[in-house]
């Protein structure tokens, strides 16, 4: 087989956040009982879409597992230490990781079973954490955020008006939201306004990964 096309990895050192001017660390809104939500950007992530050819979904899930260590299957999404993956459409997975070699590792692992598209330049990953997180998200999306309906590790695709969003539950009170980079500024604004009644904290970014 010919040498596969490998996209240029994320260059976190020179990349710029689309919400840098809005990501002002501090506490805002109704702070009567303190900030109940923490908002941050997971900046500089490697973000890939993996699309299996028909009939090759199981082989593709296994390849994602080999490339990332994630226990994804055709039926199960996964959150790991170094990567996260979820099926957002039949035979299509979103895989994110901090390691910029993600696209190359996935491309080599899936071989001819699937295609890998590097979306790092086109998506922004926002994180919402805290006890009021599900209340904020329920204002923005027509999705059941109860843990029984939306268990830890599950990811899905939905939309907030015209803003398509992919959402993965990282733990009981933490969600990662992937939105188009061009909508990130507007969506982050909506997120802060929805969080006002609960009090929110904007977490300062560190080099690479912001803390939550």
């Amino acid at each position, binding site marked *: 087989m010919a040498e596969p096309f490998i996209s240029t990895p994320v260059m976190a050192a020179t990349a710029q956040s689309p919400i840098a001017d809005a990501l002002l660390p501090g506490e805002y809104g109704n702070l009567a009982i303190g900030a109940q939500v923490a908002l941050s950007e997971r900046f500089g992530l490697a973000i890939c879409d993996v699309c299996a050819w*028909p009939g090759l979904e199981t082989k593709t899930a296994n390849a994602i597992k080999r490339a990332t260590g994630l226990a994804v299957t055709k039926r199960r999404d996964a959150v790991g230490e170094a990567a996260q993956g979820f099926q957002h*459409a039949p035979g299509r997975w979103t895989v994110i990781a901090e390691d910029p070699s993600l696209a190359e590792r996935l491309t080599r692992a899936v071989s001819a079973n699937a295609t890998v598209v590097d979306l790092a330049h086109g998506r922004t990953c926002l994180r919402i954490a805290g006890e009021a997180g599900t209340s904020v998200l329920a204002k923005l999306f*027509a999705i059941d955020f109860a843990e029984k309906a939306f268990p830890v590790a599950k990811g899905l*695709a*939905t*939309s907030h008006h015209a803003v398509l969003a992919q959402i993965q539950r990282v733990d009981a009170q933490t969600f990662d939201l992937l939105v188009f980079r061009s909508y990130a500024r507007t969506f982050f604004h909506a997120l802060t306004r929805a969080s006002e009644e609960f009090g929110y904290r904007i977490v300062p970014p560190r080099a690479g990964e912001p803390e939550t």
Partner: protein
Amino acid sequence: MIIPCPFCGPRDLAEFTYHGDAARAAARPAHGSTDQEAWDRHVYDRRNPAGSHAEIWQHAGGCRSHLRVVRDTRTHEITETTLYAPEVSQ
């Protein structure tokens, strides 16, 4: 109206786009056909039933799959949703 997507589960109508009848009243003529009446029937004739109706929807605001949905046009009750696989879309 809530449409139960076979992949995503029940979702709000706002996430879906209507793509037309799943069962046309008149079959598509052959590509080379110049039978104007046959094309006219295929393009414009609709059964327009008061009751069970097979239709194509796309879950554009979710998994983006095309679905075959059977909906009652009087009550909006949905009795069937399946992924609209390429092999049945020809």
